């Protein structure tokens, strides 16, 4: 049973008569614990696909099922709650909350849910990502690599069903990129975390258990 299952995803923009087809009938499935990389050039529709898989956007057609729940049937409120419990995000531009320190950023999704914080697990993630000495710092006091590590920790803290990463190394230098990718791979293995990552970099794709190629809104290669 796949943890993530998408069928016939379409996303059209603009006029109905002559729409821009960002996604045009994409279907894929991801098994639990898998590290999948979606590769595509700029404008190929990979970010749109990731946003729809994560419930940040709604498709024009098709369905997404995460952990047995169909996202399209949920209201915005239900979707948000589902997201904070089941989906973790890592963005190219980190997207940390500037008014919260590192620790607060990490535990934010748990606190928003009102759940007690699983401190041993959180501390384990912090240690694994090398953030022990940075817990009280604000995002503005961190380097790009450090911010991205905080973003990964935040994405993992709720033990989500899937972790979606949108070009997580896009803003980082090559050495830091290697560190971040290593950490992503390590967490995927160590915490048996399902990861779906998009990138335009074929080299990065080498880390993946499986690579899917996307072009002009369609899957053109790899095992979807």
């Amino acid at each position, binding site marked *: 049973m796949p943890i993530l299952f998408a069928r016939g995803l379409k996303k059209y923009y603009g006029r109905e008569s002559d729409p821009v087809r960002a996604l045009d009938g994409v279907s894929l499935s991801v098994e639990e614990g898998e590290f999948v990389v979606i590769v595509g050039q700029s404008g190929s529709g990979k*970010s*749109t696909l990731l*946003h*729809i898989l*994560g419930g*940040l*956007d*709604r498709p024009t057609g098709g369905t997404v099922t995460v952990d047995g729940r169909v996202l399209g049937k949920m209201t*915005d*409120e239900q979707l*948000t*709650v589902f*997201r*904070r*419990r089941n989906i973790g*995000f890592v*963005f190219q*531009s980190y*997207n*940390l*909350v*500037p*008014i*919260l*320190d590192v620790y*607060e*950023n990490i*535990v*934010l*999704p*748990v*606190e*928003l*849910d*009102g759940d007690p914080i699983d401190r041993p697990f959180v501390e384990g993630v912090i240690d694994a990502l090398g953030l022990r000495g940075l817990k009280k710092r*604000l*995002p*503005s006091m961190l380097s790009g690599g450090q911010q991205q590590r905080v973003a990964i920790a*935040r994405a993992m803290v*709720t033990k989500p069903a899937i972790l979606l990463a949108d070009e997580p190394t896009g803003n980082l230098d090559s050495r830091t990129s290697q560190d971040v990718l290593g950490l992503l791979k390590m967490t995927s293995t160590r915490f048996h975390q399902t990861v779906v990552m998009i990138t335009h970099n074929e080299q990065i794709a080498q880390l993946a258990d499986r690579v899917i190629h996307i072009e002009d809104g369609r899957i053109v290669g790899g095992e979807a």
Partner: protein
Amino acid sequence: MKNNNAAVIRRLTFRTVRADKKRDVFVVAAIALTTVLLATAFSIGMSMMETMELQRVRMAGSVADAYLSDPSEEQIARLRQLDYIDQVGVGVRVGGVNGRDRQTVGNISLTLVYVDAVQWEEINAPAFSDIVGTYPAGEDEIMLSRWTLEHIGIDRPEIGMTVPLRCAIGSDGLAEGQERAFTLSGYFTNYYYASSGGADFALVSQALADKSGCTAASSGTANIRFRDGVGRPLERLEEDITLLPGQELTAMSEGGTAGRRGSGLLPVLFAAGIFALCGFLLVYNTMLISLARDTRYYGQLKTIGMTPRQIRRVVVGAVMVLCAIGAPLGLAVAAVVSRAIVPAVAAANGAFTGAVVSRSPVIYLGAAGFAGATAFLAAFYPARKVARMSPVEGLRYEETVGRLPRWAAGGGAGKCARMAARSVFRGGKRCVLVLTSLGLSIVTLILAATVVTSIDTDRYAESLLGCDIRLENAATEEHVGVDIFSDALLDTVRSLPGLADMRTVTAAHCMLAQGDEQSGLTSKVITIYGVDGQTIAALGGQYGQSVDIPAFERGEFAVVGAIEPEQWSRIGTLEWEFVSGVTELGRVFRLPVGAAFPSELGQQITGQRTTLQIFVSSDYLRSIADALQIYRIDLDLEPGRDEAAFLLLRELVRGDNNISLQSRYELRQSIKRSVAVLSVLGGGVSLVLGVIGLLNYINVMAVGVLARRRELAVLECVGMVRSQVRKMLLLEGVGYWAMSLVLGNLLGNGAMAALYAKLLAPLEYTAFHYPILPCAAFYAVSLGVCAAVPLAVYSSMSRATVSDRLRQAE
């Protein structure tokens, strides 16, 4: 060789202006509002000074600075030679019209005066208005005021018409005269009667003056205008002209014009300072926000070689361009507002001689200058900040949070309240600006509303009038013997519904029989008043002197009001003879002086501050005088009955110019009008400052929420539901509101307590009332705005999906 980069700077300046229309609207509105407030404040201040000066001049009937009584020819010639004197006019009292002759002049006292050309053109005419005709030339020509003409019964005067007057020509002006037919050569509006207790003057020709035999030295005055800037050097003048025995050199009014202007300018400058500060905050805030958004743009400009100085010139230049639009707009609105407000403010301040809407260029130049300086400073500091930033820093600029306040750090980040508090304080300067701006509007509101609500109209009326209704002989003291209260009127008064108390002051003329040379009063007619013990007890209470009231009522002693009360205390016994008609002539009455008060206190009974006022008990005066006239009737009515009684009496005495009717009801109505004007003014200022404060808030909050588009999308992305985001934003808005409320109340209540203690509490007619209603209304409105703005902005932005918002932000 020096570069000429003015053209490119100018082009960039105008492009910068065009680039952000919303900011332009805010800045123009801020400068226009500031200019309106400044120009209106200056206009009201200047106009009120000119209005009060006009009233002083019109009531004096002259623009003279001083006058010299009975000047000799030599003295007049000497006055004209003195270099510090600008003009000398000469007036001669030619005769008089006796007030008892009701048939001719409606019981007013009219003095016939000849004035020379300088006196007429330079000294009298500027104090009059609506002058029609020419100064009398022929012996029978006369020029009268409209007030006198109305009393004579001429409502529509015409040049050349015959005006018959029974008058005495020559030095004995008060004696019974002969009927004389004058020809009206001119007429004018004056207000001299208002300061003279119902007396006026008629202008006659030099021919009549010559014929009368009267001269300046025998019964005239030299009216003097000093040159500008020399003040009123009376002591120097006394030495230069050597006063003759009995001559008086008197200043026309106390205090100099410069002094009055100085004291009037202080509150205007204070208000202008507050307005300029509020305007500064709004422009500064708008520019700070605008420049924060444009930091990358300025970073680019620096990267391609623009110097910090050039960037400052672009930013400041852009604001000055907007100032060139906003300031004239504000000035135009202020001119219209002033035209509407100044007459109301003048009337509320008791200016009945007409309001002057000042057209002094100082108002508009001053307001524009203040507004320009405000805009310049408001632009300069944000411009300097941008100009000092390094190009790389500018290019990479992203708004970050440097450090959180210690109290805000730690704790559960997920708690909306804590996150809201952090968001409020992340703005730093902007937060301070909003709080200052909103706080200032609350301070202004509290101060303005406290002044208005603390004016107690009942107390005001009580402080000005010692009874509910007063009927008084309105003729001058010289004519107090006229019996003006008819029996029918007295019967009506006695039967007024709700009448609780009725006190009368009777009066009779007498002449002092004792040879007190110092007082100089032995040859003059003095009025002796019969009053009740309660009135004397009240005067004694005010002066801090106890009087044996039962003994006073038994007629055992008299009470004296005098300019020098100590002198009259020493005299011991008063001796007087009544004039003809009161008792038989030659009979001398004696009464010890039991108490002496300053004439200001006696004025409360007599209405005039004369050299000597004699008060005896009513019963005593009635027992010694055969014929007495009622001088004044004081009435007290049961609560709520004074209005009806006043309206009834007003109808009864309508058209009788000799009876003055005053009532607390009328005074209450008049102060209510003044309070209404004050409310409109104070409310207007508070409203504008409140709007500025709220605009600052709207600006900061709207831009702040929009700038956090990505952050809010991220929060939703990681699981913050919209209701939680809304709650957080709502708490931010309420947080601004609550903090400005605390700040405004701390400062406002402190300032209000000081203002009340120093300025309002000493006034008799104030009673402290906290302005709960106006404050509550403002707090409710501002709470609504503070809560609604972030929610409205978030609502408009959250229509897009999280994904779209993340993309837009990138």
